[in-house]
């Protein structure tokens, strides 16, 4: 079975985000990019599935040349090959999904893992959109995944609990923290990755329907007051919570 994993290349979560002079994108100055943290979990699950059932794994990414760094990370962790679907500039979630759907069809991958969201635009929908475009089943925000023949049983995280979800292959699974502990790329893995291929082609993304008007920083919150340094100010705090915040 062919197993695909879709990876995005995003600013590190420790990065400070500033707005570029065009007012529509982020300032790249001093921003380092990494493989999306949730995608590392997706990569790990693809590798574990391959180890349990055999098959071939491929990492796909949509974006500029620099996205290759995240594909290489996936290859170093153990994914067999990579595909970069080249695209420059802003692309909406539907565009990313269209490009991925097209490639997944070409590859004929029956099981596709995604991170549950990219930590840049935070849409959390590319996995679902892709599955719907190619007519696959889908379970999102998965914290437990079991494959038994064609049958899939997942646990999906929801508010205050979990849903046990059943479906069948072909399917898209989006990974949530807790699904597994992603492995580190070993030195051997990093060396082996150098010999693996990354195919490059243009992304079949189509037209954006989402138009960016502008990007801006959130309003700066005025720092409040430090009431004191010990428990003697507790009554004052409770009074403020009762009278100003009106939460008690």
């Amino acid at each position, binding site marked *: 079975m062919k197993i695909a994993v879709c990876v995005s290349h995003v600013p590190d979560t420790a990065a400070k*985000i500033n707005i570029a002079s065009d007012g529509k994108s982020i300032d790249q100055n001093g921003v380092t990019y990494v493989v999306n943290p949730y995608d590392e979990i997706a990569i790990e699950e693809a590798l574990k599935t391959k180890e349990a059932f055999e098959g071939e794994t491929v990492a796909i990414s949509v974006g500029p040349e620099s996205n290759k760094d995240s594909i290489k990370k996936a290859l170093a962790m153990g994914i067999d090959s990579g595909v970069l679907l080249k695209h420059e500039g802003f692309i909406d979630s539907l565009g990313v999904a269209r490009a991925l759907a097209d490639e997944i069809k070409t590859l004929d991958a029956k099981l596709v893992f995604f991170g549950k969201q990219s930590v840049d*635009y935070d849409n*959390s929908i590319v996995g679902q959109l892709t599955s719907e475009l190619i007519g696959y089943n889908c379970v999102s925000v998965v914290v437990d995944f079991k494959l038994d023949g064609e049958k899939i049983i997942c646990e999906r995280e929801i508010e205050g609990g979990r849903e046990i979800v059943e479906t069948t292959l072909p399917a898209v699974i989006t990974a949530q923290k807790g699904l597994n502990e992603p492995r580190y790329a070993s030195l051997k893995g990093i060396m082996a990755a150098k010999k693996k291929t990354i195919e490059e082609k243009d992304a079949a993304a189509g037209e954006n329907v989402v138009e960016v008007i502008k990007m801006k920083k*959130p309003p700066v919150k005025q720092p409040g007051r430090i009431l004191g340094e010990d428990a003697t100010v507790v*009554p004052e*705090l409770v009074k403020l919570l009762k009278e100003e915040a009106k939460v008690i």
Partner: protein
Amino acid sequence: MAGKILVFLEQRNGEIKKASFEAVKAASAIADKLSIEAEAVTVGSEISNLENVGGYGIKKVTHFKNSELANYSNSAYSKLVADFAKEIGAGIILFSNTSLGKDLAPFTAVKTDAGIAMDITVIDYDGNDLILTRPIFAGKALLELKVNSPVKVITLRPNVFSSGEPSNDKAEIEVKDVSSPDLQTKVVELKKSKGKLDVAEADIIVSGGRGLKAPENFHLIKDLAEVLGAAQGASRAAVDAGWRPHSEQVGQTGKTVSPTLYVAVGISGAIQHLAGMRSSKYIVAINKDKDAPIFQVADYGIAGDAFEIVPALIEEIKRVKS
């Protein structure tokens, strides 16, 4: 703008959720502004509080009913909602950005050929165009956007749009029995974390971090959360150390929250954490280090020892409440 506005009502255990009433109120405001009609749709088995939707401004509700639809099924729900949206000629389909809404909205968007905007916190207008704002990078920046497709799917962040006080109006409900739903993907069981409020839905959150020094000290967080009727949260450091489950994590690789009150105990305020909680209405920080970044966003801070302050706080809240 052509078309109606359709709002999806989310039920869990046969009850419409609070976030859906917020969406109904927002939908009825959009409908007024654009002079279009608004109606609501839901999917489920028995639903107890459906007619209350009328009190928030929508008078017509269609209920797709089948006992097998009591639990969520993305294949069945999206087909019913998308077909209904097409049937009534909906131009805007509104969801809440809950775990169900986040899953259902994209399937519905593809099925209705719609563009999609998620997790919206502000709705503005340019003539008849909707100008939508959403937080990106977990709130480190905001994106203003427009969806340029004839049909638009939009999800609204819970706890941001006020549902206001309901009137006594009741909605007219049309029940449509569903004969054979598409249960290709379906929830077969719901496992609840027993008796716990979730940070994503709570009005008050008490979070603990590494400053609590050891997992056994989190009883302080639990006790304070209990007297406040709050959900319990945690910093990434506390989760990564294995002290608390990931479902409690607040921040960029956890949950982004905007409760009325957020209490941070022993949390220094790493950039990822601040991004996830800074839009809370009131923030209280208790931390030993008075230079900790958490005090930059806190309305009220106590720069002292959590082990002394939290027990005193619990006692004082109990005293004031009684």
